[in-house]
């Protein structure tokens, strides 16, 4: 400890993050690598600004992982989770099983006791949820085939930790002095209970989360939200996550798993977005802190002592995991690129290894001279993961990926189409099909290669590639195209690409999909005016059809819909740039709403009136006002 207390620590961690993350992002390395580098820099082997306390910070910051899983759960509809069950159990189960078996064999091969070997094998079969998911999310790859598979495997691993914690004490054979049973870990309610009772408690806890999430949390949040004190809502959200984490720990389950479950239960609730918004900054900072702590805890002293051994272990671990993953990916039908993404992302040991190694040492399963180098290896493989994924993205994929195959087609990307369509999901597909039947050439770029393969089989001309990369944009013909349509489903990436395109290809007319009003504001404020809110037109169509169904003549309903639309688009443009001043913004919104109401209701009165009776008959006899336009 450097003695200056909490604020001094906060200063160092925050400064390290603030300096290194933007630089790393600018260099295209991603935020995770930025945090890790920051950690190494302030760690004991570089600037030495933080010392032993790095480990404590690590344990504290691990809560970021718990929050991340809660957020991921929130975004995952239960039905999707159900669809993933095959890859969670099959792919995940095989990954853990096969990897553990092979590492156990390696352990036996180097002369470790079988129990120690098994412990090492189990522990090293896990990967790093934190690093993998954060990197995948940042790159917008969570929804791709490879991303989904990686997520499934990580989810299984999280579940696998529970039996591992149960098995490890059974493997004790006096490899070191046995510590106090469960020392350093909070005792759980299930300890000392017979097996069936423990299982019952666990099931009850999970049931409590599911049922509570369905029945209790909604009214509770409604009550809290009604208080209209935003920070109390935030507090409630934190309380929920921390409460579930503690409950899970108490019954011997993984807190991350518990909060993930809670997230899934709440994924369909109306408070989903508020919860997301409230938890996200905490998760981001804690996760950042976690990565910094990982960086700071890399034991370069240990590495310097045994550079050969540790180097060999790092390479071996990554290689073995990678090979197993790539075979499993192939077996489970992942496309070529998605398999590469999947395998590169999971070829490391995870943060659970830190906990499990120290637990195993206390339990007398593993000796310190085994775990010490392994802990360094784990940290190194974690730190190398973002780099490996970068290597995959920059060097491996371009050479061996689907895009290479695309280039082999003679008329491929050299075609000079007037339109480049970036993103071929829900929105892009419709635009692409429309342009195609209209005979307008569009070069389509999509980042999910499985989607690309499928669409190609259906006869669509789609190229694999991340349109936000300048070289790919150029290869797609941005120099000669006239229009760029951005139809990604990630708001950040849309804005990013729009800005890249404007800077490098100023002649392009840029059409942007906007995911919502806020996103539309952001795009307009950034100076893009061809902004299309993705749900606006279908919502208005529904509204119009409902009016029609209720007896408003179809043409009048459509006119009102159009008027509403025009007014709303104007209001959007007028209000953009005014959001900083909340009071003024709200005032303006109110004003706009009132104006719209007036326009629509005057229109309504118009409709209700007997127009041809509104003229007075004396005036009618005067030829000057004879007007048939209104009869």
């Amino acid at each position, binding site marked *: 400890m450097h003695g200056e207390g909490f604020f001094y620590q906060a200063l160092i961690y925050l400064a390290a993050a603030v300096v290194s993350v933007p630089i790393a992002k600018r260099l295209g390395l991603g935020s995770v690598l930025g945090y890790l580098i920051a950690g190494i820099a302030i760690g004991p082997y570089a600037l030495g600004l933080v010392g032993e306390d790095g480990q404590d910070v690590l344990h504290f910051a691990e809560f970021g992982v718990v929050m991340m899983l809660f957020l991921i759960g929130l975004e995952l509809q239960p039905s999707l989770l159900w669809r993933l069950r095959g890859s969670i159990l099959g792919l995940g189960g095989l990954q853990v099983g096969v990897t553990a078996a092979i590492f156990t064999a390696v352990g036996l091969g180097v002369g470790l006791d079988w129990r120690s070997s098994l412990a090492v094998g189990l522990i090293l079969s896990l990967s790093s949820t934190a690093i993998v998911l954060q990197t995948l999310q940042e790159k917008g790859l969570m929804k791709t085939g490879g991303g989904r598979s990686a997520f499934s495997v990580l989810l299984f691993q999280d579940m696998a930790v529970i039996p591992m914690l149960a098995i490890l004490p059974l493997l004790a054979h006096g490899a070191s002095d046995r510590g106090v049973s469960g020392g350093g870990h909070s005792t759980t309610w299930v300890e000392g209970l017979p097996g069936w009772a423990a299982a019952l408690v666990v099931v009850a806890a999970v049931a409590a989360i599911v049922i509570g999430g369905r029945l209790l949390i909604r009214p509770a949040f409604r009550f809290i939200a009604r208080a209209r004190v935003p920070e109390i809502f935030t507090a409630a959200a934190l309380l929920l996550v921390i409460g579930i984490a503690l409950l899970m720990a108490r019954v011997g389950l993984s807190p991350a798993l518990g909060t993930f479950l809670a997230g899934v239960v709440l994924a369909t609730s109306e408070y989903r977005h508020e919860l997301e918004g409230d938890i996200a900054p905490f998760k981001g900072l804690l996760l950042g802190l976690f990565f910094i702590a990982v960086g700071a805890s890399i034991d370069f002293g240990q590495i310097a002592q045994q550079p050969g051994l540790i180097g060999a272990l790092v390479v071996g671990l990554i290689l073995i995991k990678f090979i197993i993953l790539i075979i499993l990916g192939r077996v489970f039908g992942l496309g070529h690129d998605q398999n590469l993404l999947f395998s590169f992302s999971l070829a490391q040991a995870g943060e659970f290894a830190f906990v499990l190694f120290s637990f195993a040492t206390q339990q007398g399963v593993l000796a310190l001279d085994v775990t010490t180098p392994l802990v360094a290896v784990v940290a190194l493989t974690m730190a190398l993961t973002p780099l490996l994924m970068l290597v995959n993205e920059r060097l491996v994929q371009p050479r061996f990926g689907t895009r290479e195959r695309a280039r082999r087609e003679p008329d491929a990307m050299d075609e000079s189409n007037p339109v480049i369509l970036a993103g071929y999901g829900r929105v892009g597909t419709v635009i692409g099909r429309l342009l195609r039947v209209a005979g307008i050439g569009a070069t389509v770029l999509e980042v999910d290669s499985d989607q690309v393969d499928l669409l190609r089989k259906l006869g669509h001309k789609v190229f694999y590639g991340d349109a936000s990369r300048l070289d790919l944009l150029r290869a797609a013909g941005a120099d000669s195209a006239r229009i760029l349509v951005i139809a990604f489903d990630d708001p950040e990436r849309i804005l990013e690409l729009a800005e890249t395109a404007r800077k490098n290809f100023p002649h392009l007319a840029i059409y942007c999909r906007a995911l919502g009003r806020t996103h539309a504001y952001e795009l307009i404020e950034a100076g893009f005016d061809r902004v299309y809110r993705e749900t606006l037109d279908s919502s208005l169509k529904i509204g119009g059809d409902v009016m029609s169904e209720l007896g408003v*003549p*179809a*043409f*009048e*309903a*459509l*006119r009102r819909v159009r008027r509403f639309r025009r007014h709303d688009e104007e209001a959007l443009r007028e209000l953009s740039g005014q959001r900083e001043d909340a009071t003024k913004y709200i005032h303006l919104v109110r004003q706009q709403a009132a104006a719209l109401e007036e326009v629509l209701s005057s229109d309504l009165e*118009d*409709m209700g009136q*007997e*127009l*041809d*009776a509104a*003229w007075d*008959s004396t005036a*009618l006899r005067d*030829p000057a006002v*004879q*007007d*048939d*336009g*209104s*009869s």
Partner: protein
Amino acid sequence: MRRSRVNRRLTEAARGLDGVMVNDLYQHYPDFDIDVAREQQLLESHDVVVMQHPFYWYSTPAILKEWQDLVLEHGWAYGHDGDALNGKQLLTAVSTGADGTAYTEDGSNHLTMRQLLAPIEQTARLCGMVYLPPFVVHGTHALGKEDIDRSAADYRRLLEGLRDGRVAMDRIAGLERINGDLDAVLGG
């Protein structure tokens, strides 16, 4: 259409008549995206076509003009093989805000209804249709409920007459409007 009281009443009078189909263009094509195939099929399956509308700027409302532009196709309605409408009768039923005196050479509109409707008449001729003098309700601004009821009843009678082939074709030639003396026209 809905904004015109008279047209609303006329439509009500026509609706429900056996053998008469009311085709509200604004209701079917609020976005003006007219289904040409459907419209042509309707025309083919009927013998009398009535274009009923308020007289907007001395012509049809925009949607009815769009209907003509799209539905009356070359090779179908006119031109070499365009005989789909041959022999069918075409009637225009209009309401005007001003009264009848405005639609005379000395009136404020300077032209008669038949003169103003010449494009429709010529359209009918080109399509080989029999053009009937228009059914006109003048002075809608000043009409009372009874007047409108009478017009609606006339309209109904005329439609029934057209349906049953009771309109005396020799008596209507050259009439300014068909409903000037409906009893005579219907061979009463």
